[in-house]
Every structure is written in structure tokens, then in C-alpha cells.
């Protein structure tokens, strides 16, 4: 079980290999990699800057991880999230879950991404040819996270 909030770029393939190694007890490992897009709603993006609050951001994500673990009974979870400047094409977030059966692993990863997209304490600024703007979650992100409270 681990949460890493870091400025360094990461290699999602390598993280997945390391996480998956030697897991004879797991029937399934599910991973998601979020990548910085080069456009948002048609506007060009040259840099994404994520502001984190060290000492506050990590515990908030750790709480989400603990809830996912309790809710879906997964065996292990790793969440890696970058902050600082991020270029289009680079990975921003990586979530991987291991469970005895695939459904729990899929659902825990899906749940964690929905929570991260709406509630993780990050502040995002996009810069592009049209200037800079601060980003808040999209309506679709809020709809996504609501799916989990209806159950």
C-alpha cells in the first residue's frame, strides 16, 4: 500500500512490472495511467502545472486509498501522482490495484480515479497559446464520482 506524490516523471510500464512481480496470490492486477493531453475543449495546452500542498495532499490521497481497500477488499494498491510542471504526453497519475479476483481490482482502480479527479488536493493551471487558466473538475467528473455513492 503506497501513495507517492512527486515532481519527478515516472515510467508507468516499469511501475506496473515492479508492482506485479511475485504476486502469486493475486488473480488480477489492473492499472490506469492518466496522461497530460495537448488540448482541452479545443484549446491548445503547452504546459500543465499542478500545485500540491505537501503534508496535506498526501494524507488526503492515503485516506482515499484506505477507503478503496476496505470497500473492495483489494490486496494491494499503489498510487503515484505528479505535481509541478507537466508537458503534454507525460504521465500525471498512475493507479494500480491487485486483487484475488478481477472485479475488485477493476472497481477499486475505477473508484480511485473518480475520487482523485474530483477530490485530490491539487490546483491545476493550463498554459497555452490563449494564455493561462485555472482548471476545476468537469461536470462529467462529478457525475462519475456520484456513481459510487448510489451503491
Amino acid at each position, binding site marked *: 500500500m503506497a501513495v507517492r506524490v512527486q515532481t519527478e516523471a515516472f515510467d508507468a510500464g516499469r511501475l506496473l512490472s515492479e508492482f506485479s512481480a511475485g504476486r502469486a496470490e493475486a488473480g488480477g492486477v489492473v492499472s490506469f495511467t492518466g496522461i497530460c493531453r495537448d488540448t482541452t475543449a479545443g484549446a491548445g495546452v503547452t504546459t500543465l502545472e*499542478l500545485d500540491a*500542498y505537501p503534508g496535506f495532499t498526501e*494524507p488526503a490521497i492515503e485516506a482515499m486509498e484506505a477507503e478503496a481497500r476496505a470497500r473492495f477488499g483489494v490486496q494491494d494498491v499503489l498510487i503515484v*501522482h505528479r505535481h509541478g510542471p507537466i508537458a503534454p504526453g507525460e504521465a500525471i497519475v498512475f493507479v494500480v490495484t491487485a486483487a484475488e479476483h478481477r472485479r475488485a481490482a477493476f472497481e477499486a482502480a475505477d473508484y480511485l480515479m473518480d475520487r*482523485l479527479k474530483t477530490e*485530490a488536493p*491539487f490546483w491545476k493551471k493550463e498554459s497555452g497559446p490563449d494564455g493561462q487558466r*485555472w482548471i*476545476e473538475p468537469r461536470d462529467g*467528473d462529478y457525475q462519475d464520482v456520484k456513481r459510487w455513492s448510489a451503491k
Partner: protein
Amino acid sequence: MMKVVLLGRLRDIAGWRERTIDAPATLSALRDLLYREDAALGEALAGKGVQAAVNKTLMREDVALAANDEIAFLPPMSGG
């Protein structure tokens, strides 16, 4: 001295990220002090969805402050 931390767009509005100041007695007194120095920042701090954290814990109401506290003002979070 206490540390005041601004996150997200509040940093752009104020033109600073972090500073130390003589501790006012309460969170509301700190907001008043910041407003008197910089009305644009003061108004942004009173804006919808802006939360305050004392020593990394969100505070829903006015609280007493002590020297060495770290106060952060957090605009609505963008998510990851």
C-alpha cells in the same frame, strides 16, 4: 511568527506563495489583516469554496491562532 501559505489561483492574485507574519489572535483577524493589505486577495479569500487549513487540518469555523501555526488558504480543488 506564523506561516501563511496560498494555493492555486490565490498565489497569482497575491503575487506570493508563502510568508511569515506576526500571528493575529484568530483566523478571522488574519483574513481582516490580509484584506487591509491587499483588497483583491481579501476578496478572493472570502470567495465561494475557499477553505482555510490550520496546521494542515481544514477549519470550518473561526479558530484561535498561535505563534508557529501554519495557515493555508485553499481555493476549490482541481482534482488530479
